[in-house]
């Protein structure tokens, strides 16, 4: 299909918070081409004013996520071959966030929610004390390990229909972060964190439909993390807390 095509028909969303629309570009097809390569080609060769974000180009920094043919993707590691349909690509900014310009969405609300969900580590020791020993085989450490490889790309957040319907919902990434910290024996902020994730915008809003887990480029499972939060918060509520 896309492999024997030498030109891609690419539509890129251009505009800002006031509105915009798709603009068509013809982009040469290259071998091992990523969606980010396509966007970069357009900026270098056709549209110097095109706004978009990237930094590492190797799936580490989490800054390059966009909507590609309807689904959120990390564009630097999404091969055109995997997502193009008959040589067509439609590229837009991430859903569930306001647009700053073109493909650059405003990430501020996404990161604010990390703080709101209790995503800040609360140390219980200083650098002068010996490092805490955390046996890797404890269930808590295993639960935290499953969620710590998050690159803050907001793919899950854009994929979440609950965020779309309830814009104040903390969302999968922030809640996944809260879950990893809730399982960190070195952290001293658990009461406040549990309260934050138990509240009106917290874990109880998740409908477990798993778009987040399905699309997370790092294979994390925020749905499972949120299920863990529900169990932990639910138990605390039964005991009379939260």
């Amino acid at each position, binding site marked *: 299909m896309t492999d024997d095509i030498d030109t891609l028909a690419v539509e890129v969303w251009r505009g800002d918070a006031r509105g915009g629309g798709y603009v068509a570009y013809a982009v040469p097809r290259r071998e091992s081409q990523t969606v980010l390569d396509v966007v970069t080609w357009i900026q270098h060769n056709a549209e110097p004013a095109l706004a978009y974000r990237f930094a590492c180009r190797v799936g580490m920094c989490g800054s390059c996520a966009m909507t590609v043919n309807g689904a959120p993707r990390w564009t630097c590691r999404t091969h055109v071959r995997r997502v193009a349909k008959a040589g067509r690509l439609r590229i837009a900014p991430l859903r569930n966030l306001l647009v700053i310009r073109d493909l650059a969405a405003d990430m501020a609300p996404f990161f604010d929610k990390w703080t709101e969900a209790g995503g800040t580590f609360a140390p219980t020791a200083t650098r002068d004390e010996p490092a805490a020993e955390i046996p890797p085989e404890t269930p808590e450490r295993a639960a935290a390990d499953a969620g710590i490889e998050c690159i803050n790309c907001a793919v899950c957040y854009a994929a979440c229909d*609950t965020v779309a*319907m*309830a814009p*104040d*919902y903390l969302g999968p990434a922030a809640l996944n972060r809260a879950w990893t910290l809730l399982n960190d024996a070195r952290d001293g902020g658990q009461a406040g964190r549990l309260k934050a994730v*138990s*509240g*009106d*915008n*917290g*874990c*109880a*809003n998740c409908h477990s439909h798993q778009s987040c887990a399905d699309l997370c480029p790092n294979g994390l499972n925020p749905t499972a993390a949120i299920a863990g939060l*529900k169990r932990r*918060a*639910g138990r*605390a*509520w*039964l005991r009379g807390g*939260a």
Partner: protein
Amino acid sequence: MTDIRLYMLQRISAMILAPLIVGHIVTMIVAVQDGLSAAEILGRTQGSLWWGLFYGLFVAAVSVHAAIGLRTVAFEWLKLKGRALDMLGWIVFAGLLALGGRAVAAVVL
């Protein structure tokens, strides 16, 4: 939106409802075996503390469960918020409780 208290109340009411629904369906199937008449139903239920408790609990659990569920739907789809949203939840709860309670009273008392 939904906090953990509403979430847990909805889960607990669902856990109460699950066996009651099975009991209700089994009762319906058994009850229609000899034909269905008002006299037959009332003969079984009138003055029965057991059926009063069974369906009383059923109605209470349905009222809680449905009120929280509809409140979520109203929030996500009708964009109701704050007081209006909570009021809707309470109205659904009270309405179902009143209607169901009346029905239970009618067949038990």
